[in-house]
């Protein structure tokens, strides 16, 4: 399992899809273990224009008005190295990167 690669689905906010010129959800090949860190690393490697928009370039801290959800759980505050739910790692459920609903 530790050597395998997983197809992980990621949903990103509209404005970041526009920025990366992505039509819909993204499917990424992510090496195990599948964690927030490894998924975001893969996302930024494939779409380098997203660097700095989801997490800080240097500290890798999540931007304040974004949160991470999957399988009806808020994963935003967990360690980026915590394995994501198995249903995300198996591609059954997407990792959702969600912008706060605020403003006009």
């Amino acid at each position, binding site marked *: 399992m530790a050597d395998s690669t997983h197809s992980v689905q990621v949903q990103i906010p509209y404005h970041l899809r*526009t920025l990366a010129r992505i039509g819909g959800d993204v499917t990424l090949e992510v090496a195990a273990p599948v964690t927030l860190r490894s998924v975001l690393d893969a996302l930024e490697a494939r779409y380098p224009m997203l660097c700095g928009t989801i997490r800080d370039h240097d500290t890798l801290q999540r931007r304040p008005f974004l949160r991470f959800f999957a399988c009806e759980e808020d994963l935003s505050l967990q360690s980026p190295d915590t394995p994501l739910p198995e249903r995300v790692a198996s591609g059954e459920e997407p990792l959702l990167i969600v912008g*706060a609903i605020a403003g006009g």
Partner: protein
Amino acid sequence: MRKNLETAREFNELLAGEEKMSQVRVLVGTKKGAFVLTSDGKRDKWDVSGPFFAGWEIYHMKGSPVDPEQIYVSQTSGWFGQLLQASTDGGKTWFQPGVKPDEGTPQWPPVKSNRFVYDSSADTGKPLTTHQWYDGTQKPWEFKRVWHLEPSLTDPKTVYAGVEDAAIFKSIDGGESWHEMPGLRGHGTGPDWQPGAGGMCLHSIILDPSNRDRMYIAISAAGAFRTDDAGLTWKPINKGLYSKYIPNPTADVGHCVHHIAMNPARPGTLFMQKHWDVMRSDDAGDNWTKISGNLPTDFGFVIDVNSNEPETVYVVPIKSDSEHFPLDGKLRVYRSRSGGHEWEELGKGLPEKDCYVNVLRDAMAVDKLDKCGVYFGTTGGQVYVSPDGGDSWKAIVHDLPAVLSVEVQTMA
């Protein structure tokens, strides 16, 4: 050449030909995207393109004076942070400097055109860690956004960025990477700088065309600063400013300067719209004098200088710092042809009543045509042009998102 023309007819024919040949491109940054407005030298009929970067705040966009096709854009968002965009074809296509999404292959490691990191290295002298917060306590510097981009006068790939929290950055690779010019933050007065209502922003950058080592910047609310050694060292240039809302009204720093303008033909003369007060300096900022004169209110944000007449200055008076809209609901530009003190009201073509918009600090510009065109944008989404130096005005567009910035490119 024109002095040698024998008849007014010849002159008018020449002028008409110049108007037809020339093109102006107005770069408009708004709360919800960027727009490009183009016209010929008559500045009567306009093409509007955009929105580019729809839904994003475009704080500023400006073209290189060396290569007008090279345009830089500050794209920002409360959710996703700062981004840089650029065009090398005059705004037809855009890209993040260093990131070429159409090449098909991922790029790694990525170019980080949106990475602005304050210089805290020991090598560069005095890395400064705190500034004054609204309550008087000290607060660490924290990057928020780019307010102003100023392309170099000599190199299209060199550009300066004025940012919040206030600092100046420089890129020499077309915006692919940025490095702070730490002498500004580190020169010693930083702990006395404080944010204005809009944040602690470095919003004005003026390059002296007669002296490559001289630059002016302004910060709200710290004041104006000048370097004479290409950014290595800086000094406050606020002598003569009086701000009754700060503990020491004549302090070296702490003044809420809203904007500074210069006519490149007279680089030692600067005009300033302060929070309250319109000011001028004739010694490169060393001393300032108040020129508000007969203005109905001298609060405002924008100020600019006619490109052909260095003593002709424009402001848009705003009622007060409590009520950010024109007096009596009448949108008016005021012009001084005498470098200040005596101002005339310009209203032909501007709203006569029920107008309660604001004109933000970077939202006025002038073109370089023989009859200087003056442009400004409002928070109500109008962009106005006067093709005759302010005598008459016309809305190019009425219903854009709130306008944050206006710049003009004049092309032969």
